[in-house]
């Protein structure tokens, strides 16, 4: 049965990829500087670089994850080592005047996958970063990869350039519920692989930042809350260095969008996110719990009752929480919370996830 599913996802992906556009191979998809929290809980600047590669191998091979359309931003034509080097150089230029910063390199796929980033390009980047470390400017580095590429070899290679500072690899663990990860999300990653990867990184004093998805397809709001809390706690338990929650946002061309457009999927409530963050943070007070707020509070992103004034308040609170790790900033009240509670109960009774406010009688 799963084969039909994969075949369907792949066809869907292929169809949508036809709309993908050519772009400048020498410019990263995006790059910016922002305030960020370091592992030692100090706050400073970070440089994010989203490299343009050919994109995620899993997405090509299997149709990819049900909520992800990052592949659309990747390049339809090959990206050479030279291109990648130029992208990096373009980005790193931005921090030349800063005294201290961290660097986060993403590819919307796996940085450690040679299919996306050839060895030569990777080594070029690490070399440059090593230099910055030596200059005392680089505080931390973070990259992103699926667990299958987190090998002894790759880690040895990294630690060849980056000697001492904190290195973290972001892994899209999404959830520790295997059924949700591999069916609802179609991640194609076993929990076993994740644990192996964590064990490997530990040997090289490399951290794992767990990306956890809040509210995948096919599960109810309540399950989404419980699953996220569960997964957050579990991530710390098995040794992840930090947890970053990603409330689902409806990407174009995804299965998630298909159901959302029929009002059969609703992005998470902000109340749910607040509940999750409070819960995981209070159980792991010395750890860093972060939450992405992009997409909040549009109708495609996490939101409470649309147009309710609490939406932006909570968004700001979440951002503040991520930086300060202060749980109290999340103490917000609004009378629309009653709706959230009722929605959850109604949805549990409906068994199947509900869409957004559903006034069929109007």
């Amino acid at each position, binding site marked *: 049965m799963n084969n039909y599913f994969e075949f369907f996802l792949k066809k869907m992906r292929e169809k949508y990829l036809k709309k993908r556009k050519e772009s400048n191979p020498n410019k990263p998809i995006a790059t910016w500087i922002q305030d960020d929290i370091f592992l030692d809980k100090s706050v400073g600047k970070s440089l994010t670089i989203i490299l343009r590669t050919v994109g995620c191998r899993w997405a090509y091979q299997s149709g990819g994850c049900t909520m992800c359309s990052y592949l659309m931003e990747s390049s339809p034509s090959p990206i050479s080592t030279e291109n990648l080097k130029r992208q990096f150089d373009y980005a790193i230029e931005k921090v030349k005047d800063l005294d201290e910063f961290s660097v986060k390199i993403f590819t919307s796929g796996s940085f450690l996958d040679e299919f996306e980033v050839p060895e030569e390009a990777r080594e070029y980047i690490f070399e440059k970063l090593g230099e910055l470390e030596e200059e005392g400017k680089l505080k931390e580095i973070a990259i992103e990869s699926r667990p299958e590429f987190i090998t002894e070899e790759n880690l040895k290679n990294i630690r060849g350039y980056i000697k001492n500072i904190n290195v973290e690899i972001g892994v899209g663990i999404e959830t520790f519920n295997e*059924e949700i990860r591999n069916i609802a999300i179609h991640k194609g990653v076993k929990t076993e692989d994740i644990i192996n990867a964590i064990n490997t990184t530990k040997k090289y004093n490399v951290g794992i930042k767990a990306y956890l998805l809040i509210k995948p397809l096919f599960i109810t709001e*309540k399950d989404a809350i419980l699953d996220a*809390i569960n997964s957050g706690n579990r991530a710390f338990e098995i040794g992840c260095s930090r947890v970053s929650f990603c409330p689902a946002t409806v990407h174009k061309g995804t299965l998630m969008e298909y159901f959302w457009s029929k009002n059969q999927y609703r992005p998470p409530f902000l109340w749910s996110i607040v509940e999750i963050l409070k819960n995981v943070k209070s159980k792991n007070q010395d750890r860093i719990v972060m939450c992405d707020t992009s997409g909040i509070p549009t109708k495609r992103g996490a939101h409470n009752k649309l147009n309710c004034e609490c939406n932006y308040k909570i968004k700001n609170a979440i951002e503040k929480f991520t930086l300060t790790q202060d749980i109290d900033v999340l103490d917000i009240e609004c009378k629309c919370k009653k709706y959230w509670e009722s929605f959850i109960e*109604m949805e*549990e009774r*409906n068994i*199947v996830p509900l869409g957004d406010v559903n006034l069929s*009688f109007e």
Partner: protein
Amino acid sequence: MLEPVSYDIGRVCKEKDGTLTPNLIDVKIRSYTSKKSEEIFLLLPFSKVSDGILTPTIKMPFDTPREIAGIFNKSHVGNAKYKDEEITYQIINVGKHIDLLKIEDADLYIIADGRRIIERKELLIIQKIREKISPNSGIYFPGTIPYEMPLLAYMGVDYFDNISAKYYASLGYKFTKNRLIKSNDDFEMLYMHNKKVIDEVLEEIRYCIKEGCLRNLVEETTISNPYLRANYRRYNPDLRNIPSSKGKKIIVCIDETRIPEVKKYIERAKNYEPFTNVVVLLPCSSKKPYSTSKSHKFFINAINSSKMVVEEIILTSPYGLVPRALEGVVNYDIPVTGEWSNEEVEFINETLKNYIKKVKEKFGDTIIISHLPEHYLEILDLDDYINTAVDGNPLSDESLNNLKETLKKIKEEQNINLNKKQQKIHNYQQLAKFQFGVNFIPDDVVIKDRPNKRFLINKNNKLVQICSLNENNGLFVLTLQGGELLWELNGKDVLYVEVNYDIRKGSLFAPGFKDCNENISVNDEIVLIKDDEVVGVGRALMNGLEMKKAKHGALVNIRHVKS
């Protein structure tokens, strides 16, 4: 878990503790994920660990493409505790792919994604489930709004919940029986009010089933909702779930020709055979049976004084055509506006034509006499008939006299000599065919009128009673001898129930049931059989198909037992 108490398309059942359904069900529903997580965390204010229905973690949305339907568990079965009873349940979650529905054996069927099923007008899935499952099993349709409940109960749902009361209160909506009203009342007031409305609608559903007027309640609650109305119109209920005659006035204000009571009448009356080829068409009366009305007393008097025996045929909406023989089984109240809808006109003419065809087939020549008010003639599509209501008023002295004289003349000219008493017996024979599908009343039956109408036959030189007439619903009540006669004449064509033990007066329970005629309707008079012999007679408490699927509870009320 349920034992049916009464049917009116929908059903009232009794739980073990005496609670009557349709009603709210007090079970917890949550997913496996929740259960597991709740055991670890107890932080959400609204979640409490308890037993209940467990749902799969991953659920199938309505518009799931067929290709990916395979990743979902479409037949989720489990065990739960309900009121100290261990029950099995099945969660029905097939999205729009109703063909994927696979009914397992369970006590409780829970319809997932009811909100979407209603919105997408796929309610007929309820009927599909109800057809297949035991009458002792319940169907639970979660998350409904008050005005959806009557139709769902009409389709066979037993259980509801009142979560919508809270959900819509949280959105600022106040329930009425027919709509949601935006309100400024605070949440708690709205929530209390909305819950009360649900309780009231459920009470009304149970009341209406018992009173035989659930259809009216369904009409009331679907008429302002095109979705529900479409679902209602597309629903062809199992006519065995209403009795052949309700014994109560039914109310018919819309859909005259399509309601189950009329369909059932048509189905049963189609075997009616005329007694003679002289037919007098008469208007209906508000009082029922027609012959007890003032107007019909005049008509009957005019006919009788002509000494002519005629077919008295009442033209009426919604039944179309009611021969005098069957007048006892129809009892209805309709809005009187003097107007006919096209549907009614078409229906009346069609049934009349069929009837006349039948008369012609039997007798060749036919004389049709219209003794009808003017507005009937406008709609009547008849070629050749005598109009005796000359001034448009069948009750005028002139018209009545004209009717009498016309009949006298026909009698003389045609030299017809029919016996009024024979017609009476003929009419009862037709009624027997209406009720049982077959006749069992012999031509030489003896009819006694007091203290109640009884029918006797000569057996071994003794008069034995075969049945009596229930004046309330116009139907026969069998004696043991009547049952024997029926069985003798028609065998398994009759409405029989076969048992596997020596019955006693009282109830036949499911374990004692062996087989039955599937055509049995609720309340039908039935013959009880054991080893090919009549052992008793009784009244069916549910239809034949339901009996076959029943696991426990009473199926038949046994009235007479062969000693």
